[in-house]
């Protein structure tokens, strides 16, 4: 592998700079919504372009890194994008673009606020930063950027329900970031470093048992951020109050950034003691079960899908708890699959809402007759979430559960299979109620003129991406495997 040049090195930070600049320009055009939208779309396209360039550079060089200010790596704030981070950044950029394009349709559009686009790009910048940074304190800063942007997007609509949700989201997430900050302080105090590479070395010198309390603290903080058991309460309390395109973006990016950071800390930078990983495995199982049972109670499509995010996070936590190259590949594969499919399910639900008139399953129906294509599209994504071959979710679960069995954790694997069955129950509930049964209103017809072109394009695009992942899983696995094998967790 050849050493990357300066221009290539700058690529490591470009996926952060592009959305940050876009957010700034979009905020300056806040008074002119049309201009802000154009800037935002151009910025999102540029973000995708840069993210793909990073992916290409990473495929050539193994990883790209830069320390702004040309400081020595352990002193400056380093950005390193390895194949794992590059894949996450590319998926984030693609889902961001998809959600922005979706906003051009009239399916559950967000309020016409000038700051909407600035906040969306702030969120994308925070997520990209969290995937690219190689500095512990910088990681905290990107989580705060994401938190502030998310709070703005939650409160933007200003309805009573949204303000209520914003307050709950604020309190529980601020507790999470404070825990993260305390964990970072403890890790810095114990090792004297913040840079990931320096921490790897210093952490190995100090030893996992000494670091264990700080690692537990960091783990709990990132469980809050990723929506793990038992600290996921903020998620079902707030997500469903968001307009669909923003909700899809939240579902795709926020919890996944938390899970990825946990993978970075537990599977790459530090080597946690076995008992801690065992505990994380049980937390993962509890997360899966709590999420899927919580979803079964609800009748609002948004709430069912939102609580299901928690359940899916459980599989990713399980993969992190297992450690080892195959589990790491499984975790990232699951993350990418879930970002695409989950976002798309929310967007498809929004199209169903536009056509049938409600998100509540008891008030809608008849969409199979009126729009069989939508019904098939939903089925395709829902079955991918359940994990039926040859869809992307099958490979994600296959890699994780095969590794679970290979390591002899039969109870965890059984829980994984059982939760898949219960996921099927929830998805079948939506499909039967929204699509199969007749509409409860006699003489209901789909609304006349709708502007769903962009929505359809996005839904098909994301479905195509998920299908491609299902049909050619080896492409992604091969891209991730060498890095996964070289991480500390692979030792």
């Amino acid at each position: 592998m050849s050493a990357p040049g300066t221009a290539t090195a700058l690529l490591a930070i470009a996926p952060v700079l592009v959305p940050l600049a876009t957010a700034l320009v979009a905020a300056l055009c806040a008074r002119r919504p049309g201009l802000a939208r154009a800037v935002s779309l151009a910025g999102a396209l540029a973000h995708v372009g840069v993210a793909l360039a990073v992916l290409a550079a990473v495929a050539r060089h193994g990883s790209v890194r830069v320390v702004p200010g040309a400081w020595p790596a352990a002193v400056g704030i380093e950005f390193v994008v390895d194949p794992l981070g590059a894949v996450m950044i590319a998926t984030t950029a693609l889902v961001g673009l998809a959600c922005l394009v979706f906003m051009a349709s009239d399916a559950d559009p967000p309020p016409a606020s000038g700051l909407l686009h600035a906040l969306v790009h702030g969120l994308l910048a925070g997520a990209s930063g969290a995937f690219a940074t190689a500095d512990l304190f910088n990681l905290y800063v990107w989580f705060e950027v994401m938190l502030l942007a998310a709070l703005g997007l939650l409160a933007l609509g200003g309805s009573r329900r949204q303000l209520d949700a914003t307050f709950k989201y604020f309190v529980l997430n601020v507790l999470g970031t404070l825990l993260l900050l305390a964990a970072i302080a403890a890790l810095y105090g114990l090792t004297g470093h913040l840079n990931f590479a320096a921490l790897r070395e210093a952490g190995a010198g100090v030893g996992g048992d000494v670091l264990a309390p700080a690692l537990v603290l960091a783990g709990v903080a990132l469980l809050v951020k990723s929506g793990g058991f038992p600290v996921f309460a903020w998620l079902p309390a707030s997500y469903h109050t968001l307009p669909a395109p923003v909700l899809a973006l939240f579902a795709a990016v926020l919890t996944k950034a938390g899970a990825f950071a946990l993978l970075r800390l537990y599977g790459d930078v530090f080597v946690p003691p076995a008992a801690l990983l065992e505990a994380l495995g049980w937390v993962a199982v509890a997360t899966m079960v709590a999420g899927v049972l919580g979803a079964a109670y609800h009748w609002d499509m948004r709430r069912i899908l939102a609580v299901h995010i928690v359940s899916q996070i459980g599989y990713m936590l399980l993969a992190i708890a297992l450690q080892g190259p195959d589990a790491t590949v499984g975790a990232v594969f699951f993350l990418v699959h879930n970002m695409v499919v989950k976002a798309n399910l929310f967007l498809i639900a929004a199209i169903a809402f536009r056509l049938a008139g409600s998100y509540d399953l008891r008030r809608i129906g008849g969409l199979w007759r009126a729009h069989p294509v939508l019904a098939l599209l939903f089925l395709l994504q829902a079955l991918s979430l359940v994990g039926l071959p040859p869809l992307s979710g099958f490979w994600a679960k296959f890699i994780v559960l095969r590794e679970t069995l290979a390591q002899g954790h039969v109870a965890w694997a059984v829980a994984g299979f059982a939760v898949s069955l219960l996921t099927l129950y929830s998805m079948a509930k939506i499909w039967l109620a929204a699509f199969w049964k007749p509409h409860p209103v006699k003489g209901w017809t789909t609304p006349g003129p709708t502007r769903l072109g962009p929505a359809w394009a996005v839904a098909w695009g994301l479905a195509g991406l998920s299908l491609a992942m299902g049909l050619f899983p080896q492409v992604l696995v091969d891209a991730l495997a060498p890095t996964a094998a070289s991480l500390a967790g692979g030792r």
Partner: protein
Amino acid sequence: MSAVVVAMFAMLAAGAYLALSRDLLRCVVGLSLLGMGVNLLLLASGRLGATAPPLVEAGALQLPAQAANPLPQALVLTAIVIGFALTCFALVLVLAVRLRVGLRDSDALRLSEPGEGPDGKPLPLDAPP
């Protein structure tokens, strides 16, 4: 050193007490205090005691041995600024909740979750609260 530890625990205790309050404003002030307690922890993580200005002498390549650690100060400054932004946002949010929703009791904040109908199933979210 022990004074910092006492101050930190006092901050954390007061913050936790206030954050558990049902009054929204007290809750925000409590979280802000908790943040300050964590900031003290961050500052202390770089070792306290050394107070000489962290300036490299002309011609030298390293800090003098008794110099203070400048890094936690940079970190804590960042954390203070972010915490300040969050607290400002939260204060406006509490004000908005009080003006638009007419509530200051967090136990009464149930708008985003509409509760159960007579059949034991959740009520529909469609009707605006």
